[in-house]
């Protein structure tokens, strides 16, 4: 059972960046009007940001990181590790995007830099990874970058995903602090569900070929090609409403805490129906569970920090808060973190 604790570490700053271009689902010209209305009211996504051909996930993350480093007055020499959690790397498959980012951010050559290709669970995993490096105090500051350009992997004719994914990047500063209360984690995996969210072609299992670009329509009327994301919305929904409440419960029971010890619970922004179901199962009141889904869609690994920056900025500025952070999705992979955010710096949302 992966219940972990990283002591002497705290999250000290978060920033997020989205592309300027807004795509409004009500303006969608592909699907029937009733279907779109039902999608907006049930899934809860009115609009999302699209990066277009000129912007990569790394660009969003670099912009978020530059803003955070400047706002916090961080000395770049102190940053000993940068991890880029993304499934939208600059290049397939080499080099790692984190190496390019080390250079773009002018971080020291003594910096550890690597990519972690996780999606919706990636923020929680990324926090754990950097916290593990910092816990011993040998590295003082770590930068976690998370983000995806999911809007680029969907097929415009695929009703299961075309209106769902928005693009975003986020930067999180973690610091070694012997007085910190640390970060608690529960992390889990079920690879039997690997097909629930998959881009089937373009990797080494099914290599890219001219056929990867041919659109096919399945029995459910979903049209996509081999290099598009294939989402089994029913499997993902079923998984989310089962495992997300379980992982939160596992961690809170392990720590012996109740909802009274939780000021905010920030969940990966998957789908309003799914997230509301999870919230109700955990008996969490609405005012403790913020959303960014309506304006930004499902932004993969960036969804938790983007929600914190856009929905909790004022509250977290006011007072120290104990938070649950829970990510779940592609892999299938999921996890929960519990920590206290005191003196947290939150930058204003950056638009690129």
């Amino acid at each position, binding site marked *: 059972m992966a219940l972990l604790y990283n002591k002497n570490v705290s999250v000290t700053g978060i920033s997020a960046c989205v592309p300027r271009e807004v795509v409004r689902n009500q303006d969608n010209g592909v699907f029937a009007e009733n*279907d779109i209305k*039902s*999608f907006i009211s*049930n899934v809860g996504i009115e609009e999302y940001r699209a990066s277009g051909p000129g912007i990569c996930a790394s660009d969003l993350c670099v912009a978020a990181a530059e803003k955070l480093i400047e706002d916090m007055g961080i000395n770049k020499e102190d940053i000993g590790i940068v991890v880029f959690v993304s499934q939208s790397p600059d290049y397939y498959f080499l080099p790692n995007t984190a190496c390019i980012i080390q250079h773009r951010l002018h971080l020291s050559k003594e910096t550890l830099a690597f990519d972690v290709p996780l999606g919706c669970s990636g923020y929680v995993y990324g926090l754990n990874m950097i916290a593990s490096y910092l816990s011993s105090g040998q590295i003082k500051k770590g930068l976690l970058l998370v983000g995806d350009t999911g809007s680029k992997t969907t097929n415009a004719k695929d*009703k*299961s995903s075309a209106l769902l994914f928005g693009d975003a990047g986020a930067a999180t500063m973690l610091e070694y602090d012997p007085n910190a209360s640390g970060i608690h984690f529960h992390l889990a995996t079920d690879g039997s569900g690997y097909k*629930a969210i998959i881009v089937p072609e373009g990797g080494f299992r099914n290599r890219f070929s001219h056929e990867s670009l041919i659109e096919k329509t399945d*029995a*459910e009327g979903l049209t996509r090609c081999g290099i598009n994301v294939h989402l*089994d*919305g*029913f*499997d993902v*929904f*079923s998984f989310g*409403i*089962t495992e997300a409440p379980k992982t939160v419960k596992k961690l809170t029971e392990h720590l012996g805490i109740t909802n009274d010890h939780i000021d905010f619970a920030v969940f990966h922004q998957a*789908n309003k*129906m*799914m997230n509301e*179901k999870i919230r109700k199962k955990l008996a969490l009141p609405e005012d403790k569970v913020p959303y960014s889904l309506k304006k930004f869609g499902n932004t993969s690994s960036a969804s938790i920090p983007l929600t914190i920056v856009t929905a909790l900025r004022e509250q977290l500025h006011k007072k120290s808060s104990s938070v649950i952070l829970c990510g779940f999705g592609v892999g299938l992979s999921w996890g929960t973190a519990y920590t206290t955010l005191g003196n947290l710096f939150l930058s204003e949302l950056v638009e690129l």
Partner: protein
Amino acid sequence: MDKDAFLKSFADQFDDTDPASITLDTKFKELEEWSSMVALMIIAMADENYNKKITGADLRESGTIGQLYERISSR
């Protein structure tokens, strides 16, 4: 897991379809009101009422409500 109660809960997920017209032999995917959103509500209903997981394959491979019931009730 009671068959008739499951059928009633299934029919409750529709807004405009007459519940009396929905039976265990109904080919649910052929109902005019059937949509992916109704499907999500049915998955949520099975989880809430019966603690049973309905997968994408369960929905694809079941023709009638009775067949769906058989697939999930045996778990």
